[in-house]
């Protein structure tokens, strides 16, 4: 009996990278940047302790990067389901605005105010998830709605002003420190741990990856595809809310117009650099965190290198295209073709 004839399908888009090596590239990139900086600025890695706090360029990078780290954690889950969340910047503005306004204008104590800010961002995320999963809008379109109106809502809350505050608890969120470490960093790490536990100790991670990799097969295996998506966007909203609080605490005020502006790309970039494919499927939270650190390290290098700070945006834009080209099979084939021929 002959074997049945069935054209072997060409390999699908996504390239399978061996599990163990997946963090290698982002780590190598980070090491390279650190090395480069070490040569240019020899005191790059030095850390000193003043008043029980750690100071140094690396600490600064981690502290400044913490907002993007927070966003990237949520964004990772969304991208893993095959979607994208463009509203994270606007959601940051909403949570900061709500918390600051409640504390400053309505004299709430910080804890419930923070709670309200986070609940709002959670609802914003769930809203995105519902549009994507239940109304089945394309993720870009669905999250665009909140990207447009989110800032309007934030301005509505602050009645268009920049709400400044001195409340120590709120300030602590952005510039306080615990055990010598900036609180924002501790918060980002805690969020990483919490989301990591959420996805790896429950079935969420398995479900997200199967939905992102092959939604039909996942549905046929009984995975509740819609709930998975709603959850991912909700987590992303919540992470954006946390980042918004940190951002507000850092500048001691809620600026609905500027907070988190253009952070969407930073977060997407961090996820992509971290090795999670934009098409969805396998995701790596730690990779995304490294990605965020790489972005911040590059930014800091540009600043310490004496270049115009505005150039960082140009660099980020070019890097994101470069990384995506590296993952694009078409590009690899086009670039590798001459080498292949030479070898043959």
């Amino acid at each position, binding site marked *: 009996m*002959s*074997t049945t*004839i069935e054209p072997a399908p060409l*390999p699908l888009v996504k390239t*399978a990278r061996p599990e163990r090596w997946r963090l290698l590239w982002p780590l190598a990139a980070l090491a390279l940047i650190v090395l480069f900086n070490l040569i240019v600025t020899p005191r790059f890695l030095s850390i000193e302790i003043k008043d029980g706090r750690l100071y140094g360029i690396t600490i600064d990078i981690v502290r400044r990067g913490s907002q993007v780290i927070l966003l990237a954690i949520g964004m990772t889950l969304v991208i893993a389901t095959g979607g994208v969340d463009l509203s994270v910047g606007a959601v940051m503005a909403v949570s900061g605005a709500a918390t600051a306004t409640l504390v400053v204008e309505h004299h709430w104590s910080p804890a419930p105010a923070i709670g309200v800010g986070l609940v709002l961002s959670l609802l914003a995320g769930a809203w995105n998830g519902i549009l994507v999963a239940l109304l089945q809008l394309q993720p870009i379109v669905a999250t665009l709605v909140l990207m447009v109106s989110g800032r309007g809502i934030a301005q509505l809350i602050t009645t268009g002003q920049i709400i400044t505050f001195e409340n120590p608890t709120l300030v602590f969120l952005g510039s306080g420190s615990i055990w010598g470490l900036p609180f924002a960093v501790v918060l980002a790490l805690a969020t990483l741990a919490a989301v990591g536990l959420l996805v790896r100790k429950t*079935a969420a991670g*398995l479900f997200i990856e199967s939905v992102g990799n092959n939604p039909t*097969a996942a549905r*046929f295996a*009984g995975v509740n595809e819609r709930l998975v998506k709603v959850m991912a966007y909700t987590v992303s909203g919540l992470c954006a809310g946390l980042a918004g609080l940190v951002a507000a605490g850092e500048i001691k005020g809620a600026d609905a117009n500027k907070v988190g502006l253009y952070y969407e790309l930073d977060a997407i970039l961090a996820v992509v650099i971290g090795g999670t494919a934009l098409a969805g499927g396998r995701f790596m939270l730690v990779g995304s965190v490294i990605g965020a650190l790489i972005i911040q390290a590059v930014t800091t290098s540009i600043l310490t290198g004496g270049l115009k700070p505005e150039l960082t945006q140009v660099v980020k834009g070019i890097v994101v295209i470069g990384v995506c080209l590296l993952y694009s099979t078409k590009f690899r084939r086009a670039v590798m073709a001459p080498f292949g021929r030479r070898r043959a």
Partner: protein
Amino acid sequence: MLRMKMTETEVLQARGIVKVFPGVRACDGIDFTVRRGEIHALMGENGAGKSTLLKVLTGAYQRDSGEILLEGQAISPRSPAHAQSLGISTVYQEVNLIPTLSVAENLFLGRQPKKWGRIHWSAMQRGAAAALSRLNVHLDVTRLLGSYSIAIQQMVAIARALDVSARLLILDEPTSSLDADEVRRLFDLLMQLRREGLGIVFVTHFLGQVYEITDRITVLRNGKLVGEYLTKDLPKLELIQAMMGRELAAFELRQRGDEPPAARATPFVQTTKLGRKHAVQDVDLDVAPGEVVGIAGLLGSGRTETARLLFGIDKPDEGEIVIDGRPTKLSSPRKAIREGFGFCPEDRKTEGMIPDLSVRENVALALQSGKGWIRALSKAKQRALADRFIKAINIATRDAETPVRNLSGGNQQKVILARWLASNPRLLILDEPTRGIDVGAKAEIQKLILSLAKEGMSILFISSELEEVVRCCSRVAVLRDRRKVDELRGDISEEQIMRSIAGGAA
């Protein structure tokens, strides 16, 4: 343009077409000839090489060897567009036009008449109306194509093909989503075109239509040409035998499970008059614990559609499903799984496996989704589960952590089987579980099916290989033209099934 003389000359001659994919010779030296003024059926089951041959002819694939002559000229179509410009046009089941543009535009896209450098709309609309009325179709050409039925969209596609000057028209399953009246109209048109001398290739799953309209039949099987026949000289039964073939299995004799006890156990699942428009009708099935029930029929006869209705993927619009004696609505696969169903889909690549995830994760997926989000199987438990099945059903993989995309077809199939076995279903629906896998793995999977039934599982077994249907099943439901037409029991032979598919007569 169609004013050729009616002569018995060849429009298309393909000789010795070979197309090889990694590991598979999809077309293995196929000859195929179409003459002027004939409607020629191209028949074959899954993997016969039918669609590969068509893709080579229409330029979607490049052949590895062989030659194609179009009216005596050697051609090598590089792309569908190129094939079209040479005179080979294809009309697909999914009409490949632009639904959001008007009928007239669809006829003239890319070659609109111009006046003073701009598109001359009124001339285009007149031209469109004229092109359609040549086919005796009269409609408002300014309306969007998408606002018309599939049948009319097909007419427009044919009109475009003819207007671009087709010498060979290929119709790929044109009647699948048409009702009887629409099929009638399409056939009238085809007969008119035949009279005008066009060569037409007609691909369909409906045997009745083949006998109704075609002059000649070419049958392919396993990438090879079985033969070319005059339709009127080929009885239905022989056609079916040619398509399904009969290959002697040297490796094992029939070892069907024991006949179920005289009084059959009460069925676990029972369907009455189950059906869905344009999918399948009148499906009465019942499966008792410990039984393997087969579903036989040609490709496109409604086998997969039946499985999809049962597993809650598509919603039936008539009939009911009774589980353990209580009528149940299965609105989603999740609901079906909760009732104790499992389903190995026919197309494991797009519907079965999660290619980037490991064997371990693929095996654990259904069990985990049944348990819910919170009660997660630990990695160690998943690992143990996967290792158990790797051993039990001989999955050839380096370890449980290998992504399933790296496994061979047969082993991917086993992983998906293992996924369901792990969740211990009461009814397992298997849609072509042995398709595209090697002989050894086939025998193993068949053995596994029988032993599962012995342990009390109900199994619904869909296969186009009659030999394994006969070997494994104690009863066989036969589908023809999307309707259940027969149920065989007792000592079933392959010939009996084929006779039933052919419709008793012939």
